[in-house]
């Protein structure tokens, strides 16, 4: 295989990218949709934008699973070579993947809207009218395999087609020669359980040339088969490939750190239900945690249109906890006490990751690690991340940024957007690719369109402490985020939390819509096709 780094010409290997998305699928023939769905895959794309080859797994857990995944040995769909499949203008464009599975995309052809953040990382949305979703595309370092200690989290649908999220930590030897760990689960049907140990007999297959392998035998409450795609030595994307349930997530390495309560610093958290669950999203900040206690913080939540904005929080946390008298490194939890009793996020599972990782951009060594999160509050399964807050200086929120948003709009509908813009003198202006296949967003408007986003974030009076900004109709000077498609503007009340000048998160909190997404400072896009 000539495309892989280390397998082909080492001087000019073909870049290989792992990609994954989850969202709502419109095209399932069973007739009970839209359904939750997830895709994870790997594709080799040369420097002219030609797809050389690839493979992927698709699953909605409701009759549309990659056919090969239904067998005892999960086998992926294949992606065929195609010319000019990645077409970009200044880092934004489309990626067209032609698969051998006629049940995905348009007769097997998927199109993704792509927004590169830098040469190794892009935000993507499915962009072909058959589904909408958000995710990422990241350069892979191959060959590599799962080997060591990892935190993981997944979000999806259980066998009753009710929402479920689970996460924890595991340690594995080379190619799964050993496997042990612990996980928590929040199941919309069965409730919450913590401290579940993986059984003996978990099997991890060796990755193939695209970094794909599979994990089986994980035990009760979690998928029978999970496929992984290695991004690098410490990062893998995970997809549930069972035919009756579905989910997507990631595993991040824990490195050689021994985690304690001292490992948690001032941080931003961001978490969200999946597209088919009890819809909610939340973001917030915890300040100066020490000794298992944080005295202050601030948070926002929108749950089914019921908004709690700018709520003061405090709480406790515990890292590296014991189960059955065995301590699991980086297996923790965090509790949130709110000044507003209506704030619904109170219990989070916390799974610590290597400080040399960036959870939003796995090829970026800055970011300070942080943790994966699972919401362990009854009835609202969700997952997210906790990232160190290292720079709240408003002046550092400036320059070129890529952004993404997964928007739960009205009921049973979704749109997703990925784009780029500039933050100049306190004003944001950008344009993105917006996918709205159900047509609910703008009436009978186009299902794929270019959107402009403008706004002037207002820093909170204590922003230097919190890193929080607002774009609100209720601010003294109205300043909502304005999203315009086909000259039809819609305003959104949005808060932004700044982890640093390079990494922020925005949360929409209207009674008719909810979104969460990243804002990531762009790097060089010079060598992209």
């Amino acid at each position, binding site marked *: 295989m000539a495309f892989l780094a280390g397998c082909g010409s080492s001087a000019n290997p073909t870049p290989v990218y792992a990609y994954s998305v989850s969202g709502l699928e419109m095209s399932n023939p*069973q*007739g*009970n*949709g839209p*359904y939750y769905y997830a895709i994870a895959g790997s594709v080799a794309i040369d420097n002219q934008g030609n797809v050389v080859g690839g493979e992927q797994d698709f699953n909605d857990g*409701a009759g549309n699973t990659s056919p090969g995944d239904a067998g005892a040995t999960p086998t992926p769909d294949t992606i065929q070579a195609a010319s000019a499949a990645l077409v970009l203008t200044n880092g934004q464009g489309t990626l067209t993947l032609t698969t051998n599975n006629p049940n995905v995309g348009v007769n097997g052809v998927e199109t993704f809207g792509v927004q590169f953040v830098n040469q190794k990382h892009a935000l993507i949305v499915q962009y072909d009218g058959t589904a909408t979703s958000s995710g990422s595309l990241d350069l892979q370092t191959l060959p590599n395999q799962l080997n060591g200690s990892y935190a993981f989290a997944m979000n999806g649908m*259980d*066998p*009753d*087609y*009710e*929402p*479920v999220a689970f996460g924890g930590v595991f340690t594995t030897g080379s190619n799964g020669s050993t496997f042990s760990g*612990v996980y*928590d*689960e929040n*199941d*919309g*049907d*069965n*409730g*919450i*359980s*913590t*401290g*579940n*140990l993986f059984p003996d007999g978990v099997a991890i297959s060796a990755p193939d040339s695209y970094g794909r392998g599979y994990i089986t035998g994980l*035990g*009760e*409450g*979690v998928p*029978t088969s999970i496929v992984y795609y290695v991004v690098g030595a410490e990062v893998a994307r995970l997809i*549930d490939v*069972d035919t009756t349930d579905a989910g997507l997530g990631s595993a991040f390495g824990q490195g050689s750190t021994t985690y304690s309560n001292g490992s948690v610093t001032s941080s931003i958290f961001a978490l969200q239900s999946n597209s*088919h*669950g009890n*819809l909610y999203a939340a973001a917030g900040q915890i300040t100066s945690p020490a000794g298992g206690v944080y005295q202050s913080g601030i948070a926002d939540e929108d*749950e*089914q*249109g*019921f908004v709690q904005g700018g709520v003061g929080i405090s709480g406790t946390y515990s890292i590296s*906890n014991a*189960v*059955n008298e065995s301590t699991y490194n980086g297996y923790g939890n965090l509790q949130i006490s709110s000044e507003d*009793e*209506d*704030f*619904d996020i*109170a*219990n989070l599972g916390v799974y610590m990751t290597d400080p040399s990782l960036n959870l939003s951009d796995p090829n970026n060594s800055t970011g300070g690690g942080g943790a994966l999160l699972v919401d*362990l*509050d*009854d*009835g609202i399964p969700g997952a997210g991340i906790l990232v160190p807050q290292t720079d709240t200086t408003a002046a550092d929120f400036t320059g070129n940024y890529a952004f993404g948003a997964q928007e739960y709009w*009205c*009921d*049973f509908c979704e749109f997703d957007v990925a784009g780029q813009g500039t933050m100049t003198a306190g004003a944001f202006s950008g344009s993105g690719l917006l996918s709205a296949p159900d047509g609910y967003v703008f009436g009978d408007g186009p299902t794929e369109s270019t959107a402009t986003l403008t706004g002037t974030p207002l820093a909170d009076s204590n922003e230097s402490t919190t890193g929080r900004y607002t774009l609100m109709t209720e601010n003294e000077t109205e300043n909502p985020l304005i999203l315009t498609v086909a000259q039809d503007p819609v305003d959104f009340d949005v808060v932004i939390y700044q982890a640093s000048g390079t990494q922020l998160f925005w949360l929409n909190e209207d*009674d*008719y819509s*909810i979104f969460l997404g990243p804002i990531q400072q762009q790097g060089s896009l010079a060598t992209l096709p």
Partner: protein
Amino acid sequence: MKRLIAGLPMCALVYFALILSPLRAETVSKPAGPLSYDISKEVTFNATVSSVLAKPNRGMLMGSHLLLSTGTGSIDASLGSFGLQGKGAVSVVAGQQVQVIGVLKSLKNKPVFLTRIVRVNGESYAIRNQRGVVLSPEARERLSRKTAGGGL
């Protein structure tokens, strides 16, 4: 995905509870949130449908709603994102008598009824599960297969 406990007979549940208990650290509990669903607080009442809202009015929870008239006033009954959508959706029009089962909450100082079951014209429609999680058309169909013959 294998379920942790669902679908097992009671004797098996007891058995597994005994043999699996060392594997479990704890079950998390939390204070009741505004949208939390405490089935012990469920109420059942009859009402007349005054309006069927496929989309919410401003200030309402997302999803569809029934505005109900009772002998003591009116109430907003939330049907969640899927109540009027897809297979198994509630079939009801203004003026019909319904029986609803759910939990009454106060959100933004306004009463909202989180509906779990709607009964109309002799049919029962599952809206939420016993944890208050809204049921999609696919979830309703799987639930009906599990409970076939047993009713809701």
